[in-house]
């Protein structure tokens, strides 16, 4: 896949870890009420399902541990509206892809997390939430 100059810029920025510390915009509910910023999550697995739905896109990941036991993780993303405006499309992540997802775990201890970024199989890093731009200066929430 040929990257445009702007996309390279995005990849460079993500690669530099510039998203760290910026909790995602969530129009719909309080981040702190559902997720714990002190519970970082980073797992690699196979995408079993992608839901382009509102209020959040979701990607379900089959994650295998050292004993071969598979756990299904539910990763919350920005709405498809936000993601597509930010440059995502339906081919960015597809069922069957192996990806690594970084995010913050749910306070209730379930295998649920809000996504900070995805590391695609080719190494590109893509933010899971888009803040700014589409919300026109509304505070990051």
């Amino acid at each position, binding site marked *: 896949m040929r990257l445009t100059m702007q996309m390279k810029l995005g990849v460079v920025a993500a690669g530099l870890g510039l998203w760290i510390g910026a909790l995602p915009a969530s129009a719909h509910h309080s981040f702190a009420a559902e997720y714990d910023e002190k519970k970082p999550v980073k797992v690699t697995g196979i995408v079993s399902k992608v839901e382009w739905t*509102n209020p959040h896109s979701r990607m379900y990941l089959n994650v295998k541990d050292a004993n071969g036991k598979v756990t299904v993780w539910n990763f919350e993303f920005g709405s498809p509206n936000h993601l597509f*405006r930010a440059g995502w499309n339906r081919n960015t992540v597809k069922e069957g892809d192996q990806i690594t997802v970084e995010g913050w775990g749910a306070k209730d201890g379930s295998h649920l997390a809000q996504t900070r970024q995805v590391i695609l199989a080719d190494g590109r890093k893509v933010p899971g939430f888009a803040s700014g731009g589409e919300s026109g200066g509304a505070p990051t929430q």
Partner: protein
Amino acid sequence: MRIRFACLVMIASALGVSVWAQAAPKGGRGPSAPTGPAPRLPDGKPDLNGLLNGGLSSQDISLNLMAGEQIVLTPAADKLMKERRPKDDPEANCLPAGVPRMAPYPWRIVQQATHVFILFEANIHSYRQIFIDGRPHTPEANRWPSWYGDSVGTWDGDTLVVDTIGFNDRFWFDAKGHPHTDQLHTIERYTRKDLGTLVVETTIIDPGSYTKPFKVGYTARYALKDDLMEYICAENNQDVTHITPPLP
């Protein structure tokens, strides 16, 4: 070139700008920033039509207080606000945001000679209807307490003044739970300063919850190359089952 490139990235990051957000493909839906004078309709009225980004903070309305303004709750409203829990926020439950709350998604003004419609992409895919044909408010007997109230608009020079009454008391002003009663009365002033800028100031009057009126404001930006997208909040709303008390 490389250094300039790196500097751009650093500056963008420092400003909190989503660099990936600039990576929208050519011809995509990325935001634009039009410039030029405020347009007018053939009848000379300001033309407010267009897709906008921006609104009050959906998390805390006090962030948008105008200079010198204060939010002073009545004791009953203060108690109610302290009792509220995030899982009960109507917005998190895919109910309408009411007025003046807006989800941080695009919205569109559709202006006709007799009506102005505000079309919301989110939080629910709904609309407000504002009568600008000179009619008074709908008589109380002919309406019931509603999420968006009964809105009539008039022109004050180049400013559209929207007066709204008839609200229900079910929506929250923000995720913090700032409350209101069915005595709520809002007066919104919409002024298109230039092609790309809409300034909105809202007076909140609710003697049932606040000891005095207060004003909040924000600046929205027109995005001439974007369009509304579908947003059906209730189709996959898993959040409320995972939200835990207490308030953040």
